């Protein structure tokens, strides 16, 4: 994974500072401001950077309220990054682990947490080593590191709580801020969100918070970029070396496809993206160009979605399976003329019907995909494809539930 060098700004997430000395030189010490973090986070409008974009101050307040009632609380740094297109959390943890840990400490101070936990996907040696080294440097034995299976839903906050408690890691309907790890009120935040909190604690709520995006697909310089809010998507794509984009996936696999013409007019801020029917999500962006077959990508990711299901909720288990089979049928050109209509109908049918947002993600990805690539889908159904399979979108096999 490569990093794009961009001009430095006042507050920077990815200034390489894996060791404590450099970290302190770049960022300075993060003051312990306790519960004052909550109004500061509210004023700075810090939002969850794991995908949901939920206002962080509200989460902090909910967990802090539990602590005020003399109940022990827990904070969890979610660095699992199960979204295959996204690399920002891995980058952040390898380059600026101390910033994340500062944020974890700040959040713990704000909610009176007695346990601090960092979660990372197992098998990622670089990230594991960076986190371990940073913790050793800080001389802080109180932070626990929990490794999680390589699975998309493992990073969902209720599933993560279940994993920490020794479960299989299936999502539940219990809100962590009410009943989380060990039954205690738990704050689960993405590592980038925690890094943002560290910056707010250090610089105050007026700090310009940068965002991290990952660009992949048909680009010559894939990788993580640090951008300012409101950055034009066209600039991001240009920096990544996108060649003749046909359509852009905004928000990772749980995001939506946008035709290139629309995409090139978008800015990376909530309002602009909402107008295009999409959002930042985890900041993962993928480009499909003119020469690459998009339908095969849709089919592969559809299958990945189906296999990522925890198998708890009927609409998700069966619906994502049927959507994957239908997308596969479109790609293969087998006699299934109703397949695109089926995909649209099932997308609408599964939205909001699961314990987590996996079916919503699949619905958005496939629903928008079958529309944006309608022409190409029709070609496939007629038995033709004039483009090559470029293997643009990664589809790692989800680790099976035990």
């Amino acid at each position, binding site marked *: 994974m490569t990093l794009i060098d961009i001009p430095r700004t006042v507050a920077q997430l990815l200034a390489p500072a894996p060791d404590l000395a450099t970290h302190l030189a770049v960022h300075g010490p993060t003051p312990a401001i306790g519960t004052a973090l909550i109004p500061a986070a509210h004023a700075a409008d810090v939002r969850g950077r794991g995908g949901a974009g939920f206002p962080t101050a509200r989460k902090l307040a909910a967990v802090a309220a539990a602590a005020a009632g003399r109940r022990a609380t827990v904070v969890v740094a979610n660095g699992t990054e199960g979204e295959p297109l996204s690399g920002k959390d891995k980058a952040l943890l390898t380059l600026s682990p101390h910033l994340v840990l500062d944020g974890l400490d700040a959040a713990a101070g704000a909610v009176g947490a007695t346990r601090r936990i960092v979660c990372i996907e197992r098998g990622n040696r670089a990230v594991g080593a960076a986190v371990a080294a940073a913790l050793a440097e800080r001389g802080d034995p109180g932070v626990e590191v929990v490794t999680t299976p390589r699975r998309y839903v493992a990073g969902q906050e209720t599933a993560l709580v279940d994993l920490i408690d020794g479960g299989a890691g299936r999502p539940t309907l219990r809100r962590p801020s009410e009943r989380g790890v060990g039954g205690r009120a738990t704050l689960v935040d993405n590592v980038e969100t925690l890094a943002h909190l560290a910056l707010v604690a250090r610089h105050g709520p007026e700090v310009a918070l940068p965002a991290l995006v990952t660009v992949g697909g048909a680009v010559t310089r894939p990788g993580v970029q640090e951008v300012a809010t409101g950055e034009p998507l066209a600039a991001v794509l240009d920096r990544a070396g996108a060649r003749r984009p046909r359509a852009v996936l905004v928000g990772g696999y749980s995001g939506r496809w946008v035709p290139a013409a629309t995409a090139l007019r978008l800015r990376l801020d909530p309002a602009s993206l909402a107008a295009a029917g999409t959002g930042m999500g985890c900041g993962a962006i993928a480009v499909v160009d003119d020469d690459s077959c998009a339908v095969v990508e849709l089919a592969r990711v559809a299958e990945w979605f189906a296999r990522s299901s925890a198998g708890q909720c009927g609409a*998700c288990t069966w619906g994502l399976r049927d959507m994957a089979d239908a997308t596969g049928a479109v790609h293969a050109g087998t006699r299934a003329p109703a397949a695109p209509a089926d995909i649209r109908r099932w997308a609408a049918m599964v939205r909001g019907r699961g314990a987590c947002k996996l079916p919503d993600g699949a619905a958005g990805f496939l629903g928008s995909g079958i529309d944006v690539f309608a022409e190409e889908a029709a070609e496939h159904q007629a038995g033709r494809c004039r483009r090559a399979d470029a293997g643009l979108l990664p589809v790692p096999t989800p680790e099976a539930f035990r």
Partner: protein
Amino acid sequence: MTGRLRVDPIDCAGHGICAELLPERVTLDDWGYPIVDGRPIDGELLAHAKRAAAACPALALRLERGRE
């Protein structure tokens, strides 16, 4: 006295009894699982909603009482 119906998607096993007993508020999707209309229920329909919730073999259909 009103109530709203909610289905727990994890507990739900797709028996489909709820849709039989309360078609006004519950329809089945293509896989036999209930799509529950969350609108408030009152009057005569409330008794049927109670029956439907009691009939659920998995106790996944729940009637939330409220004053609206």
